[in-house]
């Protein structure tokens, strides 16, 4: 068993875990704020439909949150087991950021989730609204800290070396490192879009079975409006994020655009099969000069190619394709959201084909988010922390056999959890708010009472 195989297994395992984990916070991060909206609307109007809506989506939230929590605990162990070199080299920066996430976010969301789920009939209305808000604040804080760390790994800043040991010199610079504002905004909006499509999709699924369900018609509208507003904003933010990446991580951009050789007036490669052996693209479909125009906003600008960074350049094919999948899904989401807005205008009922389309797009945000994370993480290779620490230097001494065995166990557990999650979600949505008649809070809120 040689080192490269252990590195591959450690990466495969960590990638699997983090890829599985990210699915759930991506939903809960924004769904928490949608719940605040539902809860506040109920507090304002006392309309039982809002209560039923809140009750249904709180169940979806609880389930999704639990999936995120349990898969997140795995991460806290794997930082040390799979990447001991990471903590050894940059632990003085990474450690406090992770600690602040636990201290300020995890306890807050976990504790008030209990009140939010089970306390509706036990606490005054204002405290229940506050609990819902605090859960949302907790999830957003959690995203803040973890994205600060991730962004620091992409574009490290604010650190100094003291007797060869890396420590934080200026925490503000560490946290608000160059790529952080863009990545944080991009991820928050990605979560908004993902949650909006989950809400719209599951509501559409319900409406296909019960076209007159008022609560589902309302949540479909909420999902469509949120998606229609956020989708174009995301494209704008994505563009800004891209410019930021060009400035700080040009090798990643060269990979995304499959530009092998540095050139002026670089074309935009729409499609190609990148060939790493010969350092060129096969079957390329290109638009001349458009690459330079989009990336540098100047048709004749010089764009650095992979050759300028080798051997410290990322693998081209995975990020080239992942980027196109992300953009393609994003554009489809925009098109569908705007069609939805058109067909639902003035309180019209959605045609069945549109309901099917939204139901089909329920988890489209997952595909775009995963593709986006593949671009950003593989695009950083061979670095774990750009310019500071190589991925290969951080891997641990866990044997290939142990990694392989645990990888298998994780794959099986995750497959079971994911299938059960999707089945239960569709089941919940199919039953709609019918299971929670007006005036009765979450059935489980009744489970505990004095």
């Amino acid at each position: 068993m040689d080192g490269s195989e252990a590195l591959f297994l450690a990466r495969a395992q960590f990638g699997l875990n983090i890829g599985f984990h990210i699915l759930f916070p991506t939903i809960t991060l924004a769904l928490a704020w949608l719940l605040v909206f539902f809860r506040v609307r109920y507090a304002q109007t006392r309309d039982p439909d809002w209560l039923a809506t809140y009750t249904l989506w709180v169940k979806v939230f609880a389930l999704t949150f639990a999936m995120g929590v349990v898969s997140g605990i795995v991460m806290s162990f794997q930082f040390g087991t799979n990447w001991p070199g990471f903590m050894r080299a940059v632990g003085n920066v990474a450690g406090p950021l992770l600690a602040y996430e636990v201290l300020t976010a995890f306890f807050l969301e976990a504790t008030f989730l209990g009140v939010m789920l089970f306390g509706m009939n036990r606490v005054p209305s204002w405290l229940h609204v506050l609990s819902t808000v605090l859960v949302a604040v907790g999830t957003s804080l959690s995203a803040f800290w973890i994205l600060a760390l991730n962004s620091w790994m992409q574009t490290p800043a604010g650190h100094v070396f003291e007797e060869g040991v890396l420590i934080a010199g200026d925490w503000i610079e560490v946290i608000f490192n160059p790529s952080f504002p863009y990545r944080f905004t991009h991820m928050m909006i990605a979560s908004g879009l993902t949650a909006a499509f989950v809400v719209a999709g599951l509501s559409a699924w319900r409406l296909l079975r019960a076209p007159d369900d008022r609560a589902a018609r309302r949540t479909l509208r909420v999902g469509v409006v949120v998606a229609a507003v956020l989708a174009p904003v995301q494209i704008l933010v994505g563009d800004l994020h891209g410019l930021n990446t060009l400035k700080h991580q040009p090798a990643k951009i060269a990979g995304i655009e499959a530009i092998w050789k540095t050139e002026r007036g670089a074309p935009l490669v729409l499609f190609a099969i990148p060939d790493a052996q010969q350092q060129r693209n096969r079957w390329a479909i290109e638009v001349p000069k458009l690459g330079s125009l989009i990336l540098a906003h100047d048709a004749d600008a010089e764009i650095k190619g992979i050759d300028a960074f080798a051997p410290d350049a990322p693998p081209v094919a995975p990020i080239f394709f992942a980027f196109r999948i992300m953009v393609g899904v994003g554009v489809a989401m925009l098109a569908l959201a705007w069609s939805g807005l058109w067909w639902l205008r003035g309180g019209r009922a959605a045609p069945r084909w549109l309901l099917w389309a939204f139901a089909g797009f329920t988890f489209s945000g997952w595909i775009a988010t995963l593709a986006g994370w593949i671009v950003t993480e593989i695009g950083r290779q061979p670095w774990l922390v750009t310019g500071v620490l190589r991925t290969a230097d951080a891997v641990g001494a866990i044997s290939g056999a142990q990694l392989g065995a645990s990888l298998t166990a994780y794959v099986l557990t995750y497959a079971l959890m994911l299938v059960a999650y999707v089945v239960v979600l569709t089941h919940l949505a199919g039953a709609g708010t019918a299971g929670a008649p007006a005036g009765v809070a979450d059935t489980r809120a009744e489970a505990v009472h004095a």
Partner: protein
Amino acid sequence: MSLDLPLVFTVLMGVSILAYVVLDGYDLGVGMLMPAADAAQQETMVASIGPFWDANETWLVLGVGILLVAFPVAHGFVLGYLYLPVVAMLIGLMLRGVAFEFRIKAVGWHRELWNWLFWFGSFLASFAQGFMLGRYITGFEAGFDYFLFSVMTGASVCGGYVLLGATWLVLRTDGALHDKALAWARWGLLWIALGVALVSLATPLLSETVRHKWFDFPATAPLMLLPLATGAAWLWVWVATGRLKRKAIAADWAPFAGAVAIFTLAFAGLAYSLFPYIVMDKLTIWRAAAHPSSLKVVLAGALVVLPLILAYTFVSYRIFRGKVSAPLYH
């Protein structure tokens, strides 16, 4: 006077781990007791831990987080040795956590499946934790006898968690379930007695360091208060469960308080044995500690945030205090 930061973080980590063991201990114990109850009682049992299990589990993240942040070298070392039991524990915790949500929403055989996985996850996580304890206190020595010892500590921790879970149910339920829980508590007591005795005998025999710490005169005399107090707490729980059973007293909190005391005292004994090592005889807390600058930053945050965490945790337990009755949705 300069602050001994590694020592401060050792205390913080110890408190977090003890909080985790006691808090998640009772809900894992409740999970393990599920097959011994009927369907209606199972709903009450799950309802009794519903608002808490998630936050309880967060103490594990904090404990491991402090290990990672404050003692990064030890984190890699310890978790490297314990890699497979850690994976088993994580899979157990995952199954338990999601089963909690799935079982509520499922019907028919799906519900049975998730009930079973809820039990299995609780058991796997508890056993793995006890197994890790056994490996940890024997300094990760290889060999079948050490393996067997760890299996015994694994079983004992399961028994200890059953004790916590059963006494929690005594506190939080009434009727037939309350009486059943009193009987379960006594089974848990027997197991934890075995476990504590085993660890107390094995550690001084295996480690010269531990032997010297406990049995070098004159430290021995005051130190013997610790096992004596543990024995007293044990007896307290035994007597209290008996009296509650005969309805001689009504102090439903007494067994749980005693169980928490047993865990705290046993934990204190272990901590004394190990200190100042974070890996027995190999690595001290000072050699394993991270750079003071990052420790200071975390400490500042912890001093501000931990009181808040304790305050709202207290509020949450206040909100859900009292006896849990069977759920209405049946």
